[in-house]
């Protein structure tokens, strides 16, 4: 097999491939063996007719087309390997010469990955956000804990205050008449929650347990029930019970109650460490993203449209899978969000372009710095996946190979390595200011 590659446009390569006669003959033979099983020729059992008979019966062209279908992809793949071309789309194939007894010549036009001209990628400057955790942040976190563990205490005889939880009976009248949905007994209302129409909750403040009060309110103009919107109403309200949140005192006792620590200081330290860890993770990814962004910005790539389209398809598939896990299919999703597949495509385009761009740049750097993934590393990764899905590593590997996911994993690992390499080489300045 002979193949010549020629770059005809920026991202398009024209491959001219010649397949030797013997290979073609072999393919023709195979084609005959396949076709003969499908045609029914009178006088012969299926699959028993001689070649010339089949040829006359189905036509030479059919046999030839069948043979070409077998030999072309094979030759094409081989040609790609020989010419070291990495296509990103299906090739357009034109058969130039296709006759029995002569070599088969065909042309394949294919889009390839664009050339990336890398800019500066070593020593890009990034700022690492501070991971300092201030006392106030810790205190806030403690207070949140305190609130979560607060007890509701029934107030025997007191007045309704802000943030109290009340049990009320109420009956509402518009123009002296009760209306649907305006009455309830022992309804739990938190004052200040804003669940009721504005003014209602505020007017209850100061009412004692067991007392009744008439509350005058006006329904807002944009109330959901149209017959009520904008109308003045009177509610007869009786307060049955008042419950007040009682915050625990912040002391060692509290620490013991809410955590496995014995003293408040230990709890404080724990909170601080956890916050610090979170901040560090955040800072690391910020540094990584910042570095990659900077490097990508320094490089110039012209991305062919097909690559973006492929990426968009991939992303939509991912979304679809996530939705499917939640038991929603794509059509339902579009109905809920009142959008369409095309909207989604449009929306994802900028993101897809960005991803493709950084992937291309990262791959280019990997090539420039000859960063590769070794077999052992891949095995390690597979082992990890195997442990995660609780399957044998060999099985996992086989499945991945079958689905073609192995290449993705290797690519992904290489990219992660490049990112690490970039971060190592970046000038990182610390941001000392606390958030």
């Amino acid at each position, binding site marked *: 097999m002979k193949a010549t590659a020629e770059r005809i446009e920026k991202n398009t390569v024209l491959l001219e491939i010649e397949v030797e006669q013997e290979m073609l003959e072999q393919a023709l033979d195979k084609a005959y063996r396949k076709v003969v099983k499908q045609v029914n020729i009178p*006088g*012969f*059992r299926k699959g*028993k*007719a001689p070649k*010339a*008979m089949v040829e006359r019966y189905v036509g030479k062209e059919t046999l030839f087309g069948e043979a070409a279908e077998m030999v072309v992809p094979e030759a094409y793949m081989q040609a790609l390997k020989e010419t070291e071309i990495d296509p990103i789309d299906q090739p357009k194939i034109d058969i130039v010469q296709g006759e029995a007894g002569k070599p088969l010549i065909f042309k394949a036009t294919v889009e390839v990955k664009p050339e990336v001209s890398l800019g500066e990628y070593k020593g890009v400057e990034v700022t690492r956000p501070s991971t300092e955790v201030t006392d106030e942040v810790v205190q806030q976190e403690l207070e949140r804990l305190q609130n979560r563990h607060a007890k509701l205490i029934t107030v025997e005889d007191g007045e309704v205050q802000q943030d109290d939880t009340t049990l009320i009976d109420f009956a509402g009248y518009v123009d002296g008449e009760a209306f649907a949905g305006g009455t309830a007994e022992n309804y739990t209302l938190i004052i200040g929650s804003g669940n009721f129409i504005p003014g209602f909750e505020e007017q209850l403040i100061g009412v004692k347990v067991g007392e009744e009060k008439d509350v005058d309110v006006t329904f807002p103009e944009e109330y959901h029930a149209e017959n009520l919107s904008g109308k003045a109403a009177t509610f007869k309200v009786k307060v049955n019970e008042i419950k007040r949140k009682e915050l625990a005192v912040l002391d060692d006792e509290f620490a013991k109650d809410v955590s496995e620590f014995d003293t408040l200081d230990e709890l404080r330290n724990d909170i601080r460490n956890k916050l610090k860890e979170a901040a560090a993770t955040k800072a690391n990814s910020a540094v990584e993203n910042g570095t990659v962004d900077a490097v990508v910005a320094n490089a110039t790539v012209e991305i062919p449209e097909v690559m973006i389209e492929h990426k968009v398809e991939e992303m939509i598939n991912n979304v679809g899978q996530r939705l499917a896990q939640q038991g929603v299919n794509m059509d339902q999703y579009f109905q809920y969000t009142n959008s369409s597949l095309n909207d989604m495509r449009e929306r994802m385009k900028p993101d897809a372009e960005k991803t493709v761009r950084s992937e291309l740049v990262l791959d280019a750097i990997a090539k420039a710095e000859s960063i590769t993934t070794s077999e052992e590393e891949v095995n390690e990764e597979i082992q990890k996946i195997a442990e995660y899905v609780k399957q044998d590593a060999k099985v996992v590997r086989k499945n991945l190979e079958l689905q073609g996911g192995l290449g993705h994993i290797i690519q992904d690992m290489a990219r992660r390595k490049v990112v690490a390499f970039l971060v190592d080489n970046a000038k990182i300045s610390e941001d000392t200011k606390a958030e």
Partner: protein
Amino acid sequence: MKNSRDILIKPVVTEKSTSLLAENKYTFIVDLNANKTEIKKAVEDIFKVKVETVNTMRVKGKMKRVRQFTGRTPERKKAIVTLKDGDKIEIFEGL
């Protein structure tokens, strides 16, 4: 005597007849009333080959029925002609 072309009606192309080609035997449907000598002459005349032997057989028509009416497909005579070594009949070539 009859015309050679009236004696030989058509070649038989089946799996069985194709496999007989390997033994230099060619199969024809021939006129029901033709005898071996006539067939031999006809083949030699038309294809310009030398015939060694001729075997013939009558193929009885099959019974066919359309609703209640029974009938029979026509009876035919089949001849297997063995040629002299090296001789060939072109129309069978490549089968």
